[in-house]
């Protein structure tokens, strides 16, 4: 499960997700309002928060599909950097 920092940053970019609504692992980020502009911003915020860098191949709709896929991509990078 992801940490609170991740959830806070992610929710800022999901205009269609009500604050009362739970963020589930399989929630579709695109359907929750993540557009291409917000995706770039989100990317920049996550990179500076976790001190990681997404490679171009990771910048796909698959990576940004759900909280789960995105968190797992970050975890992979964190794992690789230690």
């Amino acid at each position: 499960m992801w940490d609170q920092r991740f959830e806070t940053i992610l929710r800022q970019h999901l205009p269609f997700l009500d604050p009362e609504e739970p963020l589930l692992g399989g929630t579709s980020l695109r359907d929750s309002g993540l557009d291409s502009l917000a995706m770039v911003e989100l990317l920049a915020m996550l990179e500076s928060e976790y001190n990681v860098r997404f490679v171009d191949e990771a910048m796909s709709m698959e990576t940004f599909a759900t909280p789960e896929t995105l968190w797992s991509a970050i975890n992979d990078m964190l794992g690789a950097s230690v």
Partner: protein
Amino acid sequence: MTQHPDYALSGRFLQGLAAAPRATALHLPSGPVSYEELHDTALRWAGALAAGPDGPPRVVGILAGKTLESYAGLLATLYVGATAVPLHPEFPATRTARMLTACGVSTLLLDDAGLAVRAELGDVVSGVPVLAPVVDPGGSSTGLRLPVASATPLAEPHPAGPDDVAYVLFTSGSTGRPKAVPITHGNLRHYFSVLDDRYGFGPDDRFSQSFDLNFDCAMFDLFCAWGAGASMHPVPPGAYRDVPAFVAERGLTVWFSTPSAITLVRRTGRLVPAAMPSLRWSFFAGEALHAADAVDWQTAAPGSTLENIYGPTELTVTITGHRWSPQTSPGLCVNGLVPIGSLHDGHDGVLLDADGAANEVEGELLVTGPQLTPGYLDPADDEGRFLIRDGRRWYRTGDRVRRLRNKELIYLGRLDAQVQVHGWRVELAEIEHALRGCPGIEDAITVARAGAGGTELVVFYTGEPTAPAELSRQLRQILPKGMLPRSYRHVPEFPLNSNRKVDRARLARTAAEA
């Protein structure tokens, strides 16, 4: 060396090839591709296209992202004398299928993303030969997968006449049916001769390539760069998190994008003085350019000449330009928007008021001249969009403009319910039509508002309250992602104006206040 075909758009690439054969024509994320390599690739693919079951294709649909397939595929299509139809793999399959039918695509050229979409296209593409030159170079024996490995390369690019169609692109239609706009080699020849005179790009220039290939501004990038023997650099999605770093890494001298890129660079904290010293030119098109954005970009790219360029697809990419001057331009701005400038040489414009009379100062902009499309592919779409006046055919842009004291034009707004979101022309009626097809929705009104990242759409709807994510998911099946609304609001009923019509203006104010 062969004589360059007189009107063929591909002649611009051959010009660059002759000037700088070993230089980089295209810099993909995987690495640079030289003019010679790209030329040889395009000749091989053109040979494969020509060897199809029905001989050389008439119309090639290029369903691919910003991959080698798009760039070499476009050249190969032009080399074989066919019309190119660039298509976007992320567009909904139903929409792409309608486009393929509308322009009678006779061969498909696909990358891996395009191949995945092809599976969803259904009957429309059964029997249409496929060339997937990188993913499947061997083809298959059934004949529907054209082999590139065993094909004989085309000996030389085919010539083209002024009336031959170079490409077909689609614009949003009010009925939900996209309209096909053919642009001829003659249209493009005039267009690029104007640009050559205006900018004088050279082999040392390095162009950004931010636009998707189904957006005609991409043609500016490709054929300005190639005509000059310069290199062109598709901007990968990740580069947007730090645009100045990408500009510096590639040593870009020419930047061209929609104005939303300015917002993005600002929001990522990179729009700072002299952040992009290598830029000689900065171009913005596709949406209204705000004066404040122009000022900030100019400060970040102080060595560049900044232009706001404007034009509908029907008039070949762009038809006007305003060169920004930090001294004089701010005084010309209206409603905080930068002028769109003067019409390209060889064109005439007239402003029509609501009664259809010519007005010196303000009205709908009509344009005629050598960049004007011969008309929509389906003549039924021409209705009301073209006007015969003084014995000439004019295109009605649907844009309200004002003529400034210095005779330049400035954009005021649309006459109809059309807006531009991140450069995509959107008919509000098209979105409303789509929403009314959602279960539980009675009626829907869409309005535009100025958001932090450019124009945004806001939907008001009646019927059953529905989760926004659900509506978004429904719309995504039928609309490109660039058209998706930013907010959905349920209302018990719409406000009405004094004519008992839905008060769109009031809804627009409500949306803007939020």
